[in-house]
């Protein structure tokens, strides 16, 4: 049973990656999930976005799912990556590489400062402190501080981008860039959560004080995870900027950060692949529901139905509600249940093998009482 | 699963509480596997058993705090299908094993919550028993010491005059002198109310028990008058050490 899992999981993963990499050449129809054909430029753009957002979600899962640090400002570092990258390109003589590297660097520095302070607060207070920090940045950008463009955002002077990334014909290159980042971050996160530091993070999530009394300087471990997550977020922000050709003020909004929480719940947190699933689903909903709303089908409906259904946000909301009501534990939860049943028939708990980390969501019986 | 011992049931006095073939589940595990137990009115029945056999779960099953099947009769009515708060409102006092005082509420508020609608709370009694609580009414229960929390938990159970007291390890964490007082109170209480308790302190059990019931692996395997426990608890020990878990030095 275990050996089976040992071999299959990586095999399946590799297969998926290869498939994803070949996407641009797949001429199969998108079946409404994707516009036009799967390989179409339109789909590439959407899938690319999904990949970047998935990277962001995974980084957030390290914080929230594994360490129990619910930040309401994680989008801040994503935005920081985008904005510093784009603004360096737009307002300085910095080239692509320099801009990207220094953007990442700046993100790390800011992350270090912000988190070093925010982590002084208790686990719950942490989320509000991060929210405050993120809002301050949102205000600064909203008021066009350092020509950050306010509600307009800042666009990349595309002459400064490598030719391979300019023009829609090259959308697939941007997609590969995003996919590459995703594969990298995914494997990194999988590995990280299996190391001892990963286990200490989960210990902190379960009972921080106890971990402290055991001899773990929890502050350092928390700082480590926030730094790692923020850096990943910053890098993701850079790729996102390339995808959009601009830094989008939407990234600084509270709702963007809340969106991250939503993705994790949709996918199931405390699972790297849960975060990934959640992000992909969320992005597809965000991108494709408008098409549903403005479809001829809806237009044909009587007024009473048409008016609400013409609002993509309403559909989105309803989907969320149905998710919670009918898919407790998110997609991961459902899938787990399935495989769990199979595994039990396959015979008992995985012997010496690593038991999968418990989904952070499922509350330990003691507190569920 | 083990058969409910019908042998004694004939000369049984009137019962306050009866469990018949009760099964309970927690998560995916099947915890209680057909518990049958008779609790005679106005007597003290002590539930003995190793850690993890299902003593607490039995109590929680009676209160409907866990998913359970089977028949549970209390004061003549089948309560198996009822909501916890309705069951309790029938006149049950519960002292949970891990205290479960509300840390964020003051001692006074904790007691105020325990006051049953309609009944008159016996504050005098509990304050006489635990004067410390009177001093601390305005403090958050969370700031109490372990034993003080145990006292508060007991106080909540004793506040109303109940038909039935479910007390789970009432003397845990109490200083010997306090243990003694608690024992006396329970003794007095047993006059008008039925007591079902879990107790690890054999001295206390011996002192209070009219009947003992021994649980093994989610079922009651022995139930008899406490007499024998007083004389030689060898027999009981025999049952208790079934599937002895701790190897420790003995290994």
């Amino acid at each position, binding site marked *: 049973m275990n050996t089976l899992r040992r071999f299959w999981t990586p095999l399946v993963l590799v297969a998926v990656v290869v498939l994803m990499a070949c996407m641009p050449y797949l001429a199969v129809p998108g079946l409404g999930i994707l516009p*036009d054909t799967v390989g179409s430029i339109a789909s590439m753009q959407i899938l690319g976005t999904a990949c970047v957002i998935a990277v962001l979600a995974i980084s957030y899962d390290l914080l929230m799912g594994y360490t129990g640090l619910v930040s309401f400002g994680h989008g801040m570092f994503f935005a920081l990556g985008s904005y510093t990258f784009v603004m360096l390109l737009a307002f300085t003589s910095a080239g692509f590489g320099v801009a990207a590297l220094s953007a990442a660097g700046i993100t790390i520095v800011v992350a270090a400062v912000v988190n070093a302070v925010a982590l002084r607060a208790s686990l719950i207070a942490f989320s509000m402190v991060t929210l405050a920090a993120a809002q301050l940045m949102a205000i600064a950008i909203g008021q066009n501080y350092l020509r950050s463009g306010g509600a307009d955002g800042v666009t990349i002077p595309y002459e400064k981008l490598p030719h391979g990334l300019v023009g*829609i014909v090259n959308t697939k290159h941007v997609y590969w860039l995003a996919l590459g980042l995703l594969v990298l971050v995914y494997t990194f996160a999988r590995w990280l959560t299996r190391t001892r530091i990963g286990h200490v993070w989960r210990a902190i999530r379960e009972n921080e004080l106890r971990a402290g009394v055991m001899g773990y300087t929890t502050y350092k471990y928390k700082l480590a995870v926030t730094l790692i997550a923020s850096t990943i977020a910053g890098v993701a922000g850079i790729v996102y900027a390339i995808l959009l050709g*601009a830094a989008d003020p939407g990234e600084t909004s509270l709702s963007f950060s809340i969106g991250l929480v939503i993705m994790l719940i949709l996918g199931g947190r405390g699972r790297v692949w849960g975060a990934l699933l959640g992000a992909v689903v969320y992005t597809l909903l965000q991108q494709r529901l408008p098409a549903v709303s403005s479809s001829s089908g809806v237009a044909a409906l009587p007024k009473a139905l048409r008016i609400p259904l013409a609002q993509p946000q309403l559909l989105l909301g309803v989907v969320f509600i149905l998710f919670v009501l009918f898919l407790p534990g998110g997609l991961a939860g459902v899938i787990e249940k399935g495989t769990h049943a199979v595994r039990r028939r396959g015979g008992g708990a995985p012997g010496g093998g690593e038991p999968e980390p418990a989904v952070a969501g499922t509350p330990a019986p003691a507190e569920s009482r | 699963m083990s058969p409910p011992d019908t042998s004694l049931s004939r000369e049984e006095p009137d019962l306050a509480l009866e469990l018949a073939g009760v099964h309970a589940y927690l998560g995916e595990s099947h915890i209680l596997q057909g518990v049958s137990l008779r609790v005679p009115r106005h007597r003290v029945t002590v539930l003995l058993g190793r850690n993890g056999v299902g003593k607490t779960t039995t109590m929680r099953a009676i209160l409907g705090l866990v998913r359970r099947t089977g028949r549970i009769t209390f004061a003549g009515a089948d309560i198996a299908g009822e909501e916890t708060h309705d069951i309790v409102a029938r006149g049950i006092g519960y002292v949970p094993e891990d205290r479960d005082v509300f840390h964020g509420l003051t001692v006074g508020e904790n007691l105020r919550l325990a006051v049953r609608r309609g009944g008159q709370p016996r504050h005098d009694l509990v304050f006489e028993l635990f004067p410390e609580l009177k001093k601390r009414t305005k403090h958050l229960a969370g700031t109490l010491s372990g034993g003080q929390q145990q006292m508060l938990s007991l106080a909540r159970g004793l506040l109303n005059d109940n038909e039935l007291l479910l007390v789970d390890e009432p003397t845990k964490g109490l200083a010997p002198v306090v243990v003694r007082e608690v024992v006396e109170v329970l003794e007095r209480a047993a006059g008008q109310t039925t007591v079902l308790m879990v107790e690890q302190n054999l001295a206390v059990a011996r002192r209070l028990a009219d009947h003992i019931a021994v649980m093994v692996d989610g079922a009651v395997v022995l139930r008899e008058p406490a007499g024998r426990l007083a004389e030689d608890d060898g027999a009981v020990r025999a049952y208790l050490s079934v599937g002895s878990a701790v190897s420790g030095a003995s290994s």
Partner: protein
Amino acid sequence: ASGSSGGGSDTVKVGVISSQTGTYSVQSADFRDGLEAGLNYLTKGTNTVDGHKIEVTYANDTGQAPVGIAKAKAMIASGAKFLTGITDSSIAIPVAQQAVQNNIIYLPGGSASYQLTGVNPLVFGNANKNGSQIFQKLLGGGDLSKKKLAYVGQDYAYGQDTYTSLKVPLEQVHVTSTKHLLPMSTTNFTAVAAQIKAEKPDYIYSSWAGAGTDQLFAALRAQGVFDTSQFIGYLITRNTYASIGQALGPKGVENALFSLYYYPGFSGNAEEKFLMTWAAQHKHQVEYDDPTGWNAAAMIVHAIQAGGTDDTKKMAASLDDYTWTSPQGEVTMRAADHAELTPQFAVKLAKGAGDTWTPQLVKAYTSKEMATAVTDPIKR
């Protein structure tokens, strides 16, 4: 998900990216009506120009940049030669850039007018930019050197740009001005109203839009600013007339002056008549942005006629200094900076029955009178 056919030379694809839902939903609807009316009129119902069929597809960007940009790329990929539509500036600007990168034409309508005027030969700005020009006129002739104007706006790019573009014409006539930029989230204007009152300005100009507008006006009114200063602003969608009128109050409305981009019924030309009947057929009420859509249609048709359908640079060039008649009156696309020069109308608000408010024409200005100096010309 249309136009997967790639679009042969016989069809010209036009992609409309606008916020069908969200902040700009009303304007988007108007724009669409105007665009369709215009195309229908200019192609005599055939919807073909010189044998080229015009195929218009609409996309809802829901006001979110990632969505809008994805739609734009999809449309470009499906062979669109034109992108247009009214949307949020955070979408219009990157979309404009996509258009330029991929060498197609973008007609942003009312979107991001300041930022998108004069950026590129392929991007054709919008009229609002010269809106401020009208105020120099509105202030009337005579010696204005003693006059003072107080400006209130939202403290971000739009509010800041509006002020700068306002200052130029004002300085020409020696009107001194002070600016009060407040965060968009401001919910209490009493203090700033008191400040303005203390300045005793002769005119007060507001570019405040959206949430807070009514509160701002109410505060100014409560502090008695309108008793001493004349309010100057502009009108956008009809829904908001009532709230503005009510908030200004009797005294405020009485001497308030507004600029209006389209005054229904003024030109009375064939185009307008057609638009009116068309709108009536489609149960649509002609609005501020119907002409914006019409103008887009006019430019699309002309570009095809004069520039064909293959070389977008040529098509774009054909629009330089192109002048056409729209329901507003005569409109010119200025070559220097691609500012769309349109007529402007100075109006007052008047209360009708119930809480219906209607603009009353004070004076109309032709697009020539409205031509501002070229501030940021296109670098070619």
